[in-house]
């Protein structure tokens, strides 16, 4: 095995609802605090208690943020999934299991090291009550891993003390369970394993970084961007975004003198109402948003068309999950790209942003409100479950105190007074963006918002020519949007003519894949899309490549379709690399896919990670 110090992946298989989440978070954070970059992915069922769940932790000295596709240490705590968990361990790896009960011999593998720790027995002897014993068994494995991976037990106590600051008794009981596992392991096995953690001095590579999930970061972004109305209907995996907005607002947005809340938080009766509330509030001049997932966007379609055509700002976070229909609600995908871009009936198109991680969720939240008001149209922030619900290591989020919200073209009282007549949908500046007014400001600014045909002056019409004038101006506005949306991130070498195109949560895996491919002697350009509509940079990049791999996490290559529809690119040039199992994409998948296409002989070659 190559050097696995600070460079390995652990997978923990448990049963959901048994307290493993706190053990996993403890492990993640203690590695993070040792200065070593770490990635955590939670694969959980759509269930409250009793079904299998996994947690994958990748310790990555090279700061990769995606799955590698390999598992070096497996903690198999769930008898139900034991057989598949054993199979998943990479050759040369380690398997830890609860040896209280006998392990089926037929599942033995001679290419891995199996370590049995009697976790249930240890906990049964030391704790009382069925529930406590089950919970402590899961904390206990954190102690086992602490010994095997050489984690600082003092740091773990510190973390527990922070977590249970208000319940000190829990610190002692949890610590007792950790020590049980830690001591047993140190007494019975050679510690640490060759696979282990070596703290990096001076804060290491995690200094100036946080471990945060995308929904928390997006919710925080909404608070800082000045959103005042949040309306939503609960749906996994978006709910935690609204929870974050509410809990940050409860702390940071309550007037210290009056105790009044400078925000409205509305749990709607369904997604149709949620987006309606957002439109009503935005139309009335508040920064309003909703968070949902694919099924919710489906329900919001009618209103999104109205918003596009009546030019009402709105911010919508789509935390994509596996579909169709309710699909696998707790698994990740990038499967609403076309739904987002073309939501609703009739001639509609929507501005979409594609954040790659929690850091971009935070900044794109701010940008989305600016864009929504600047462009007077819905902005879809296309996150996904992987970004939204997993903890990612990100540079510290920064806020510029000189930030002034871009409220777009809103006419105030004085401006309206000066007008002879206000025309809601007239293109005064030639950029396709009209001026708007808010209710309650001035009777001369009043207009009638409607989805039915209207003239550029804002009046009802069923006249074909008048209708078309408005529709064509909306097209101009969409072109204008290209200037304002985040530009693609392009890494290009003039001598290379193969390009990778990806977006959103695939970026981490692609970046690692680029390094691995380079180590194989395969060099490629890379463009990360960050928004729709596509600007000239996108056109140019596609034009300059001979072959383009469009990497995405859905079955049908939705972004590839969008690129062929919305750019001049020649369709045959675009190859899809599609990952749609519901697990986050891995670097290994991309490397294999690219090599299979450009080096047919490489199909059978084992792809090795970068040392």
């Amino acid at each position, binding site marked *: 095995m190559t050097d696995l110090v600070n460079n390995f992946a652990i997978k923990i298989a448990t049963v959901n609802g048994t307290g493993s989440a706190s053990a996993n978070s403890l492990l993640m954070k203690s590695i993070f*605090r040792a200065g070593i970059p770490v990635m955590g992915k939670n694969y959980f069922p759509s269930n409250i208690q009793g079904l299998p769940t996994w947690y994958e932790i990748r310790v990555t000295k090279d700061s990769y943020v995606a799955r590698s596709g390999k598992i070096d240490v497996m903690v198999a705590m769930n008898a139900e999934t034991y057989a598949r968990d054993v199979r998943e361990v990479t050759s040369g790896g380690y398997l830890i299991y609860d040896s209280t009960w006998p392990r089926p011999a037929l599942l033995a593998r001679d290419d891995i090291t199996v370590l049995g720790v009697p976790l249930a027995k240890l906990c049964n002897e030391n704790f009382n009550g069925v529930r406590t014993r089950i919970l402590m068994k899961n904390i206990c494995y954190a102690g086992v891993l602490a010994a095997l991976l050489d984690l600082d037990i003092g740091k773990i106590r510190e973390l527990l003390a922070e977590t249970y600051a208000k319940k000190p008794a829990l610190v002692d009981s949890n610590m007792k369970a950790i020590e049980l596992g830690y001591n047993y392991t140190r007494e019975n096995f050679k510690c640490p394993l060759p696979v282990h953690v070596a703290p990096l001095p001076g804060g290491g590579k995690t200094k100036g970084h946080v471990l945060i999930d995308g929904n928390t970061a997006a919710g925080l972004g909404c608070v800082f961007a000045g959103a005042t109305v949040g309306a939503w209907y609960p749906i996994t995996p978006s709910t935690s975004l609204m929870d974050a907005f509410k809990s940050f607002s409860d702390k940071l947005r309550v007037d210290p003198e009056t105790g*009044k*809340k400078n*925000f409205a938080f509305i749990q*709607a009766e369904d997604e149709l109402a*949620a987006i*309606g509330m*957002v439109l009503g509030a935005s139309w009335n001049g508040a920064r309003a948003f909703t968070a949902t997932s694919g099924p919710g966007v489906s329900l919001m379609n009618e209103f999104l068309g109205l918003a596009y055509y009546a030019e009402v700002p709105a911010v919508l976070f789509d935390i994509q999950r596996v579909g169709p229909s309710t699909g696998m609600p707790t698994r990740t995908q990038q499967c609403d790209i076309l739904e987002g871009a073309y939501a609703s009936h009739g001639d509609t198109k929507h501005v979409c942003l594609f954040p790659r991680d929690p850091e971009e969720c935070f900044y794109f939240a701010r940008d989305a409100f600016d864009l929504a008001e600047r462009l007077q149209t819905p902005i879809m922030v296309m996150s996904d479950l992987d970004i939204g619900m997993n903890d990612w290591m990100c540079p510290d989020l920064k806020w510029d105190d000189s930030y002034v919200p871009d409220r777009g073209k809103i006419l105030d009282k004085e401006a309206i007074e000066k007008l002879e007549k206000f025309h809601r949908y007239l293109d005064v500046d030639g950029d396709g963006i009209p001026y708007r007014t808010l209710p309650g400001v001035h*009777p001369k600014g009043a207009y009638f*918002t409607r989805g039915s045909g209207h003239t550029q002056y804002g009046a009802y019409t069923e006249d074909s020519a008048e209708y078309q004038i408005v529709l064509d101006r909306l097209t101009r506005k969409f072109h204008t949007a290209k200037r304002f949306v985040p530009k693609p991130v392009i890494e290009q070498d003039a001598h290379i003519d193969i390009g990778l195109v990806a977006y959103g949560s695939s970026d981490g895996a692609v970046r690692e894949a680029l390094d691995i491919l380079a180590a194989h002697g395969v060099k490629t350009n890379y463009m990360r899309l960050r928004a729709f509509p596509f600007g000239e940079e996108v056109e140019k990049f596609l034009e300059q490549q001979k072959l383009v791999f469009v990497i995405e996490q859905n079955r049908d290559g939705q972004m590839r379709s969008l690129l062929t529809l919305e750019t001049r690119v020649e369709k045959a040039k675009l190859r899809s690399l599609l990952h749609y199992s519901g697990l986050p994409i891995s670097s290994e998948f991309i490397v294999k896919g690219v090599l299979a296409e450009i080096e047919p002989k490489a199909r059978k070659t084992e792809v090795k990670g970068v040392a």
Partner: protein
Amino acid sequence: MTFLPKPKVRHPSLPKNALGLTRRDYEGGLSTLCAGCGHDSITAAIIEASWGLDVEPQNMVKLSGIGCSSKTTAYFVSGGHGFNSVHGRMPSIAMGANAANRNLMYIGVSGDGDTLSIGLGQFCHAIRRNLNMAYIIENNGVYGLTKGQFSASADVGTKAKKGEVNQQPPIDPVLLALTLGATFVARSFSGDKQQLVPLIQAALRHKGFALIDVLSPCVTFNDHEGSTKSYQYTREHYDAAVHADFVPFQREISAQYAEGDALPVVLHDGSRILLRKIDSNYDPTDRARATAAIGEKLKKGEFLTGLLYVDTTGKEFHDVNETPAIPLNQIPHNRLSPGSAALAKVLARYR
């Protein structure tokens, strides 16, 4: 035609309200509804009510869904913003708009299809939130724009113009609203301006969700024998429980009514509704008895009208949400954004 502006004819002798505005200033575009439509009478009543209440036109927000009724928001108070949204979803637009600015006056106009079929869910939840708005249902028991299908308020046995007989029981918005805990429930008839105008004024001033179900015969599809929502039927089966008169806070006129007959209900802003009792047993502050009385009449095919229930103590959305007095859309950004120092503190939890 709504795209034709209504000519503004001002005669110097037209009476003016406290703002110096005439009734004409509360008009909107020309109606495109069928001649004789009950909805147009309701529009006239809204104009009269707004003028009489001295509403600043720009402070009135007019909301609607889809249907004949929903077009009418374009026909009154052209100085106020209007939002003709999508079918059955007006309450959510109203909720959002109201959340953004609690200081404006929100009036929603809907139909029986818009409210009781496609929009039933949003209607119910707006009531549950006690959203501060006046909500008028222009109820004719029929889908007009799609040419005469039964709506959910059509009575069993109602015959459509083509002869089809409705077999499904109606949803009565008044009984439904009472069940859901509505704080202001009224019913009236489009042809009874005397009753309707003060009801609309009271609804506009009521703090919370104020429902007025206005029976409004459809002259084209539902004004024929066999329909319980025709002009003739409604006039014959119309029973006013209470006569309501609205007295604005600013100019109280109480001499008109003998004290002994009147039950004043004081609204949150100090204005009062004087309820003149026709039936001495009727108590508009008793939800259970109101429900029973309305049900009794309905069984006989009669509509009890007037202010049927009122509760001025209910908490509206903003009371529950604890929003400040200043509208959310007017709070300056520096009071909304916590700033970089607060962010640094927040981030400490994520290390």
